């Protein structure tokens, strides 16, 4: 049987596969073929090995597994004849890649073939080595390849040169061995050898500075001459492509010259003439010519500035840009991006054309042009360019809007000359493509809005107008809802009117309408609805006349299947119904968030993104990490529910966010401010929590666990730890105390009480001063005074106290959290205790003081029972 005359079987298989109508049929045919090939493999069938391998290659191309044929390649390569080797090497290159262990087995055969007397077999081996060699093979066979660079036949030399490129790529250490042979390759006349020699030389230069210097010295003149020759060469049909002799050689020469000329004035100078000639003389009506011009421009841009050349290059790009061929315009845009850093002014001249390209129908061109415009924007043209881009946003493709929006937002954020412009542009973007705006962007927008106090009215009115037109843009709705909640009164009363505004008439009901529509729209997601609820709560206080209506809207969400919404609406409902007296304080405006802090946090949040990701995943469906945080507090609060002074305490605890914000705006101490900001961030970033809260959440988890055990035996005061939480929980009780029903006054208060030393340890002393408001004998004002008896400074000083059920305790923020040593200063903290069993029982208190001493946590605890009897 003759294996070479029976090639029909391969044809038959291909035919059979092509005749298949369904994928299942094709699989069946392939399975059958594979089975017979496997059988042949295990029989060690010699006659059909090459044909089987050819079939396998075809099957492989269709995407089926063919690993069982790998050893067949090796056997064919090891065979003596050229035809077997040819197909074997082809199979090797197709079926294997450098990461397969099997490949190592071929090293020996390759070595033999590289030394074969038949030059075509040497060629096959070089080709295979060049295409798939691994680092080990490169090391083993590098000497052979190096030797072949001097082989008598040029076709082997060129293959060896490309093989060397691969070897250097795999094992950079071997590079220096190739430096000397390359010099002689560059002097060759044969185009193939020259071409590959130049590529090898370029690679060597990119690998080592030393080689670069060497070639600069040795080959500069020669290369310039070669380029000159090839540029001026007469018509040669063998190398001619559309009237240009060997454009490939042109391009590779230009590329090597670029590497040599970069950062070296002398080298750049010596090539300037020929570059100028190429730039001016090359025909630009065919692709081949343009390819050369393109390469030439790139070279001119990267080498040292030689007079006039850059102008020439920019002009070529200008011509490219106005070309009708999309390919040419694409490369022009690409090149101009690099030119911006070299000569911004020259590129600016083409700005209008580039802007046109942003609107091109071709996605590749649009993308390039947009990148380029982004680079071109500066303070002076930002307004005009942004206007163009936003105008285009209205008509652009859906799938381009994302990119375009992101770029516009970055431009606006980076270069906005003033806040009103920033807000205006962002509102335009939000109305056009609100759904493409990323969370960070609208969070930042809200921060800017809160900071621009003179623009609050203007912003909320603009948003109101915008939302009438583009209610389907989710993010626009969110920002509008937030602003209406915060600044609803300014919307209705036209407060803070700017000259450029047309007055609008919005009634309180209109404003509530907007929120109602948003919360009822079925496309609104959880975040938007949650924001709507908060806005409604705020509006219920801003617009007392709409209070009943708002209550009705909120009531509808009470049955929501989304736990978060349900919980919030029940809480808000009870605030509206039961706690009118504290409501207005509860829903005061958000404190202004410092822009610098916000951007700092933004940067930090990238670091903690991993943490937040893992955290939110453990929370399952909860979209807001604020929610688990609140729930944790809730746990603590449950313990105290029985004893809590009013039923409101429970949900107030839940509503931490609202409570703290109003608290912080009242007190304004630094710590409270901080917690207020956190909460603001929370509201802002329901999707992506700020780093601080996220990272502290697990701590709170554990602390709350501790506290529960600690608190429950004592009584029902929820005692939460952690700096920000403490501030807020005390705030809560404050609110309740302040506004809760006050007990009827019984008698005037007379006596003054002497101060006591309530607690003293070796390191710390706590003094209490007392006073009573006349008319409320049950309430006692206490002033705690802490003195440090040691010589070291205590930091992170926190005082906590707990009292039995018949007492109500309220802690105000401490004067400081740092306590200097040696009694050089003190911390004072006010407490208010209301004794419901006044006259029957006296006050007792359990205290806990924690601080850091030399960065180590110290905890001191004690019970105070030496209060004056009749407090």
């Amino acid at each position, binding site marked *: 049987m003759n294996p070479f005359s029976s090639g029909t079987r391969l044809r038959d298989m*291909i035919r059979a596969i092509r005749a298949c109508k369904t994928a299942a049929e094709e699989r069946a045919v392939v399975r059958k073929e594979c089975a017979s090939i496997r059988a042949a493999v295990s029989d060690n069938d010699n006659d059909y090995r090459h044909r089987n391998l050819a079939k396998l290659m075809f099957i492989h191309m269709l995407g089926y597994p063919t690993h069982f044929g790998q050893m067949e390649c090796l056997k064919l390569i090891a065979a003596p004849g050229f035809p077997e080797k040819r197909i074997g090497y082809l199979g090797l*290159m197709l079926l294997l890649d*450098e990461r397969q262990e099997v490949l190592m087995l071929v090293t020996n055969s390759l070595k033999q073939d590289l030394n074969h007397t038949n030059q075509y077999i040497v060629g096959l081996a070089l080709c295979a080595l060049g295409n798939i060699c691994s680092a080990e093979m490169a090391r083993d066979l590098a000497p052979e390849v190096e030797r072949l660079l001097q082989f008598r036949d040029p076709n082997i030399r060129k*293959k060896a040169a490309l093989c060397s490129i691969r070897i250097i790529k795999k094992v950079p250490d071997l590079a220096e061995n190739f430096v000397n042979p390359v010099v002689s390759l560059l002097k060759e006349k044969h185009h193939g050898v020259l071409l590959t020699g130049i590529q090898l030389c370029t690679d060597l230069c990119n690998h080592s500075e030393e080689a670069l210097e060497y070639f600069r010295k040795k080959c500069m003149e020669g290369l310039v001459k070669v380029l000159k020759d090839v540029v001026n060469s007469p018509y040669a049909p*063998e190398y001619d492509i559309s009237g240009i002799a060997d454009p*490939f050689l042109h391009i590779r020469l230009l590329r090597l010259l670029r590497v040599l000329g970069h950062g070296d004035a002398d080298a750049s100078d010596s090539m300037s003439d020929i570059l100028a000639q190429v730039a001016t003389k090359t025909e630009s009506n065919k692709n081949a010519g343009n390819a050369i011009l*393109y390469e030439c421009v790139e070279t001119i841009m990267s080498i040292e500035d030689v007079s006039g050349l850059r102008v020439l290059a920019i002009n070529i790009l200008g011509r490219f840009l106005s070309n009708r061929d999309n*390919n040419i315009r694409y490369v022009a845009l690409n090149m101009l991006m690099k030119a911006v850093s070299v000569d911004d002014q020259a590129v600016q001249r083409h700005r209008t054309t580039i802007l046109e390209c942003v609107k091109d129908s071709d996605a590749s061109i649009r993308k390039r042009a947009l990148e380029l415009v982004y680079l071109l924007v500066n303070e002076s043209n930002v307004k005009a360019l942004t206007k163009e881009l936003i105008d285009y946003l209205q008509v652009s493709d859906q799938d381009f809007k994302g990119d375009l929006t992101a770029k516009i937002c970055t431009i606006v954020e980076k270069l906005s000359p003033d806040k009103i412009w920033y807000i205006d542009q962002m509102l335009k973007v939000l109305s056009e493509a609100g759904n493409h705006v990323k969370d960070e962007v609208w969070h930042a927008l809200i921060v800017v809005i809160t900071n621009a106090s003179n623009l609050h009215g203007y912003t909320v009115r603009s948003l109101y107008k915008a939302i009438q037109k583009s209610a389907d843009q989710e993010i626009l709705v969110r920002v509008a809802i937030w602003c209406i909640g915060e600044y609803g009164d300014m919307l209705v009363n036209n407060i803070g009117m700017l000259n450029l505004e047309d007055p609008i008439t919005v009634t309180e009901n209109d404003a509530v309408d907007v929120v109602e529509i948003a919360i009822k729209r079925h496309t609104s997601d959880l975040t938007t609805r949650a924001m709507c609820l908060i806005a409604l709560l705020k509006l219920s206080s801003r617009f007392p006349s709409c209070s009943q209506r708002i209550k009705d809207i909120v009531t509808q969400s009470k049955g929501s299947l989304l736990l978060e919404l349900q919980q919030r609406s029940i809480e808000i409902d009870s605030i509206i119904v039961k706690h009118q007296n504290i409501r207005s304080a509860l829903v005061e405006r958000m404190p202004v968030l410092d822009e610098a802090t916000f951007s700092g946090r933004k940067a930090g949040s990238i670091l903690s993104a991993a943490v937040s990701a893992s955290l939110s995943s453990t929370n399952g469906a909860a979209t807001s990490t604020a929610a688990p945080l609140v729930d944790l507090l809730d746990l603590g609060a449950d313990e105290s529910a029985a004893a809590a002074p009013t039923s409101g305490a429970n949900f107030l605890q839940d509503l931490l966010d609202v409570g703290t914000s109003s608290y912080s705006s009242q007190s304004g101490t630094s710590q409270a401010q901080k917690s207020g900001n956190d909460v603001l961030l929370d509201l802002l970033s329901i999707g992506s929590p700020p780093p601080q809260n996220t990272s502290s959440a697990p701590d709170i988890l554990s602390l709350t666990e501790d506290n529960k055990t600690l608190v429950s035996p004592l009584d029902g005061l929820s005692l939460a730890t952690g700096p920000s939480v403490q501030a807020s929980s005390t705030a809560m009780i404050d609110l309740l105390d302040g506004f809760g029903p006050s007990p009827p006054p019984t008698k005037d208060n007379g006596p003054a009480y002497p101060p006591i030393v309530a607690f003293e340890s070796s390191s710390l002393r706590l003094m209490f001063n007392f006073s009573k408001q006349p008319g409320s004998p049950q309430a006692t004002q206490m002033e705690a005074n802490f003195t440090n008896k040691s010589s070291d400074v205590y930091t992170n000083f926190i005082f906590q106290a707990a009292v039995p059920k018949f007492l109500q305790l309220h802690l105000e923020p401490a004067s400081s959290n740092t306590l200097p040593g040696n009694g050089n200063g003190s911390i004072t903290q006010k407490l208010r205790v209301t004794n419901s069993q006044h006259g029957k029982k006296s006050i007792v208190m359990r205290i806990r003081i924690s601080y850091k001493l030399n960065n180590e946590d110290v905890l001191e605890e004690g019970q105070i029972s030496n209060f004056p009897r009749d407090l």
Partner: protein
Amino acid sequence: IHFVLSISRQGKVRLTKWYSPYSQKERSKVIRELSGMILTRGPKLCNFVEWRGFKVVYKRYAGLYFCMCINQEDNELEILEIIQYFVETLNRYFGNVCELDLIFHFHKTYYILDEILIAGELQESSQNTVHRLIDAQDSLVEAAKEEENTVSYIIAQVAN
């Protein structure tokens, strides 16, 4: 050049050549992604698509797309010329090449590609040289065949 692909308009793969390591899984993913991107592009658009930080230069000949994947900083126009050069060489070898030639003689297509590119770099700019080399190797195969024929003929004779 990281890889060369040839895809028919129906999305069938006609030729794949990988010069950078891609696992089998990645390869089929790459092919799927690119055919989705390239086959849907209109005729007047430019021949470059940006993909995973690389650029893919493609050119359509009848129902067949030839694609080459290059780095961001490479010369796209030159790659177009290389594709053209490859196709012209095929055309000269097969004589008015069509898709069927590439299917049934896929190994020959690979041989020609191997004479043009090694390690993803161009090795020869003269079509004549490529043809000379391919012809020489083909005739080596033919000669071996002949020899085999005579030998097997003799064996057959002897067996008879």
